[in-house]
Structures are given as structure tokens and as C-alpha cells.
């Protein structure tokens, strides 16, 4: 190397160092993903009326930050995609799970949290301490299907009591064979598959079947990726698993859904198969659950966030179907929209008792009216 190239190299090295030094130390504290400053919003504030005078006119398009449940993600994505076609605001969506989403929500980092279960009291408390108010909006139904291998000839239906016998914490190491679930079923091992314990799906299933959120046997094959569960059940003739209905619809040839009997004839007699219809009309119980978005009330006073939420509740129905979930009845969207416009905070669906099981969304929303 001659002297000239040496000088260049030295210069380059110095440049690199200074860039790195700058990069890691000084940076403006402005956080583009943070929710709007807590503007005190009057109770009836969030309407769609664009208020250019009130909003600080940003040169870059405003960002609506969403995070939360991976189950709700496909719906959020569909709505965001359509919303952005008609609006200038940009939507970003992260997937850190329902619980992770609430953590960011209560830290004021995001405007909207997607949740596959209602907010827990502990999470609501966290938000309250941070002075962050939430508007809870149900946006769709999801069915949790019970599935077995296609060659399974015995499990033609299953009752909630049998599911409990199979999944309750006491079953661990004891209920290991199909014959222990129902007499007459074969004396063969049963292999269980289900979502990981950090998922909202697991929380809802345990609450609906075992009666207590987050309590089940631990000796089952779990995965955060539902496609892995699909693979597992489809390759194991002795398997039984549970996961979202969308994964069953897409894998009809590999899986056999099992109709579920909740023993309550008021919402349909006998075992009922999970389908768009039975989830929507409330007969597939107790494994139908509502999905939610939670809107930061302060952020809802930003015109783009209000516009997004209203777009969600007025145009969402078709998009929910596109995303392979089940749309709420039109009445429920109307009631939810009214709830948003009023700016009603707090949780209807969660509360101290955990998820409300077996109540339709419109009934709950109407109760509030």
C-alpha cells in the first residue's frame, strides 16, 4: 500500500467511527410510533370530522401504530391495506402477542392493540396507573376447532365435560388413553396438540373448558405456530388438537373437525360442528370467542386514528371474511361504532371474572345501551 491509499483508508476509518459514534449516542427523542400527546378528549370527541386546524400539520404522513395478537393480525392487515388506499395516514402493525400488545399499549407506544381475549384486570390496572384509557371494540368472531386425524373413526363428537377430563390440570399423567375419555373409545394413547401458553387462544380455551384461565395439563405438544399444530395432528392418527377455525378451513383434507356438545340445549341441541354459521349465530359454544381491538382514547382524538377505527367498524365485515374469520352481525358493528363515538372506556368483556364465555357480542353491547 502506498501512502495515498493509506490516507484514504485512514479517512474512511475515521468517518466510520464518527458515524457509529453519532449513531449510537445522540438522537432526537422524538418517537414517531408514540401515541399522540394525551390531549384531554371530551367524552364525545372521536368523530370522523377531519380537523386540520386542530392537528399539528406533519410533513410526513401520520402513522397509526398497531400491535398485539397474532390471531388478530390478518384482520388488522386487511383493514390497514384497504384503509391506506383511501387515506394518507400510514398504518404499521407489530405482532408481539395479546399480552405484549397490552404492555406497549399501556406504555403509550401504540394507538391500537389487537387482542384475542379481553383485557385482564392486571393489564387494565397497568393502563390505569399510566393514565391511559382504552376503548374496547369487538371486531370479529373466531372459532376454536377441536380436530383429530382424518383416519380417526371413533371421535365423532365430544362433550365439554370430556374435553375437560382430557385437558384439566389433574389429567396430567393420568388421562393418557382415548378409553379414559369416553368408554367405548379405543384403548390407545391420545396425543394432544395445542397453542403455547403465552397465546390468547390458550387462555380462552382453558377458561372455556377448564373454567379457569391459564390452567391446563402441561404434557401436550405446544407450538406458537398453528401450522405446526396442523402438521402434527395430520401426521398422527391418535392426535387431538385445538386451534383457530381458519386453519381447519384451509386444511380440510388433512384434518377432521370434531363437533362439540356443551350439554346446553338452549343454544342448539347435541354436538355442533364449528363453522362460519354456527360461530356467528352463537350455537357453537363455548369455543367461539370475540376478537378485539383496543383504541387508546387520547390517540382516538387524532383524526386519522378515529377515521381508521370507524373504517374498521363500517367496512370491516367483508375484510374479516377475507381474513378467514367470522364477521359479527351488522347490529354488533353498529353498537360498537356507537360505543367508539361515545368514547366509552373500560372493558365490557373482560373484567374481574376473565373472558365472558357463551355470550354473544351484540347481547353484551346492547346490555350497555
Amino acid at each position, binding site marked *: *500500500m502506498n501512502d495515498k491509499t493509506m490516507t484514504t483508508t485512514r479517512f474512511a476509518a475515521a468517518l466510520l467511527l464518527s458515524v457509529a459514534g453519532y*449513531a449510537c449516542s445522540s438522537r432526537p427523542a422524538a418517537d414517531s410510533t*408514540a401515541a399522540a400527546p394525551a390531549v384531554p378528549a371530551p367524552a364525545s370527541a372521536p368523530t370522523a370530522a377531519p380537523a386540520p386546524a386542530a392537528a399539528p400539520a406533519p410533513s410526513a404522513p401520520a402513522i397509526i401504530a398497531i400491535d398485539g395478537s397474532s390471531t388478530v393480525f390478518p384482520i*388488522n392487515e386487511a383493514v390497514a*391495506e384497504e384503509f391506506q388506499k383511501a387515506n394518507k395516514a400510514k398504518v404499521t402493525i407489530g405482532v408481539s402477542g395479546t399480552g405484549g400488545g397490552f404492555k406497549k399499549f399501556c406504555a403509550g407506544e401504540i394507538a391500537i392493540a389487537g387482542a384475542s381475549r379481553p383485557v385482564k384486570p392486571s393489564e387494565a390496572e397497568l393502563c390505569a396507573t399510566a393514565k391511559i384509557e382504552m376503548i374496547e371494540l369487538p371486531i370479529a368472531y373466531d372459532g376454536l376447532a377441536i380436530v383429530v386425524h382424518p383416519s380417526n373413526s371413533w371421535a365423532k363428537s365430544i362433550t365439554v365435560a370430556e374435553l375437560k377430563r382430557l385437558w384439566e390440570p389433574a389429567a396430567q399423567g393420568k388421562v393418557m388413553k382415548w378409553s379414559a375419555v369416553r368408554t367405548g373409545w379405543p384403548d390407545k394413547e391420545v396425543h394432544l396438540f395445542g397453542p403455547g401458553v403465552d397465546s390468547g387462544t390458550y387462555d380462552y380455551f382453558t377458561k372455556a373448558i377448564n373454567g379457569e384461565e391459564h390452567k391446563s395439563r402441561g404434557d401436550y405438544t405446544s407450538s406458537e405456530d398453528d401450522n405446526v399444530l396442523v402438521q402434527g395432528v395430520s401426521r398422527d392418527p391418535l392426535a387431538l388438537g385445538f386451534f383457530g377455525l381458519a386453519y381447519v378451513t384451509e386444511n380440510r383434507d388433512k384434518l377432521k373437525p370434531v363437533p362439540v356438545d356443551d350439554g346446553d340445549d338452549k343454544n342448539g341441541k347435541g354436538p355442533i360442528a364449528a363453522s362460519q354459521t354456527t360461530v356467528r349465530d352463537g350455537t357453537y359454544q363455548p369455543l367461539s370467542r370475540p376478537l378485539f381491538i383496543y383504541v387508546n382514547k387520547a390517540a382516538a382524538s387524532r383524526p386519522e386514528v378515529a377515521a381508521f377505527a370507524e373504517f374498521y367498524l363500517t367496512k370491516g365485515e367483508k375484510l374479516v371474511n*377475507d381474513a378467514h374469520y367470522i364477521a359479527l352481525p351488522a347490529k354488533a358493528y353498529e353498537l360498537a361504532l356507537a360505543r367508539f363515538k361515545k368514547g366509552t372506556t373500560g372493558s365490557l368483556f373482560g373484567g374481574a371474572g376473565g373472558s365472558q364465555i357463551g355470550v354473544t357480542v351484540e347481547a353484551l353491547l346492547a346490555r350497555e345501551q
Partner: protein
Amino acid sequence: MSDHDTRSRMPERAFFALTIAAVAVPLLVLLFLLVIVTRSGLTRLGWDFVTSYPSRHADHAGILPGLVGSLWLMGLTALIALPLGVGAAIHLEEYGKQSRLSRLIEINIANLAGVPSIVYGLLGLGLFVRTLHMGRSVLAGACTLALLVLPMVVMVSREALRTVPMSLREAAYALGATRWQTIRQVVLPQAYPGILTGAILALARAIGETAPLVVVGALTYITFVPDGVDAPFTALPIQIFNWVSRPQRAFVVNAAAGIVVLLATMLVLNGAAIYLRNRLQKKRA
């Protein structure tokens, strides 16, 4: 005599076969992966795929934000990790060689290289995102990845510096060069190829990382590319993981195409580094 010959050649041949197998097995596995992934992703691969934003329609969805995000991350990670790592290596190897402290640091760096990446993610969340107020930006992601690969850069650079014969340094000193002149004009040019190898390894590791980025706050759906170091971002592996976990099978095809893009990106980055290394080697010769 001939009996003795064959006997003595036996271990030689066996060893040769073993080394062939050692080369062939990983290559075949890689080839297998490449063929499968390319075949299943072939229908989606194309210019549109690379230049489109994600979508709920699998056949319209593209990987642009992930690709650009990953390139930003790689660039910034290299800018941060290489000067720091090489600087640390020079200090430890050339200046502080004998001290007990430097040996202690050496052990710690070796240990840091084995820390799970998720731990670096948590560190990045606490340090860069929260304490240094970088937010969930591409810069915070790059700083986290830089920390993650730093031990590797330091260790490989030290090895490279160690291979420079002591006699060269002594010759430089004998000519009256100062320590700094010796390092700059004699040691570093000799060590560059080795250091670049370390950089390749480090970046190859960083481009595949997902967990720390998710913790730091990488997004899954974003329809614009970063316009600065403080912009929100996503990365290729995150987009691929999202597609793999979708119920619709068409998204799995997208995931396969995404993997091909990821491999191609890595290949280009490594190719550039190898080209640079060869040029430096030639210049030195």
C-alpha cells in the same frame, strides 16, 4: 511390501473419504434446501415480488419493506460493529496484550459470543430503545445486532492480528516506526483479509436474526421503507416467519420466495466482502 503399502494407505484413504463426506454432507443439505425452496417459491419470484408491499392477497404481497429493512440493518450494523470490534481487537492484541485485565476481557468476550440472541434483544430494548430514547427504530435494531455480533468480530479480528508474524513488527520498529505507524502500515494491511472474513461471518449471522429484532420492536406489516435511522422497520426473517404461520397455503409459497430473496441478499453481501478481500490480498502480494 505391497501389502505394507496398502495397509499404510488405508488410513490415508479413509481420512480422505471422511473429509469428502464432511464437505459433501453440508453442501448436499444446503442444495436440498435451495432446490426445495426455489421450486416451491418459483411461481412468486420476480421483480414484482421484490418491489411490492405486503398484502392480505398472497399473490400481490411482496417483500420490499423486509428487504430494504434488512439492508438498512446490515449497513448500520457493519458501520457500528466493525470499527468498534476491530478497534477493540487492536487494543487487546497490540497494546494490552500482557495485562491480566486483557485476559479477563478475553474470557468475557468468548462467553458473550455464546449468549442467546434473545438476551441481546432484551438488552437492546432496555438500553437503546428506552434509556437512549432511540425508539423502536431501525437504528435501535442495528445497534442491538451490532452488540450481538461484536464478540465475533473482536475474536476473529484478534485471530487475524495474531497471524501477523512478530518479525514484521520488529522490522518496522527497527526502521524507527512508532507503534501506531507499525499497526497502521504493517500489521493492519496484513490482517485485513482475516478481518473481512470475520465481517462476513458476523453479517451472515445478523441477517438471519429474528428474535432480538422482535423484542426491540420490528414490525410485521409496514407499507413504507425506512427513510432515516429513526424510522420504524421490519426485516426479511420476520416477514418470512409471518407468512409461514398464516393459514392460507398461498402464503407458504410467498415464504419460500422470501427465503430465496434472503439467501440471495446474503450471497450478494458475502460476495462483495469476498471480492474486497481478494483485492486486498492481491494488493498485499
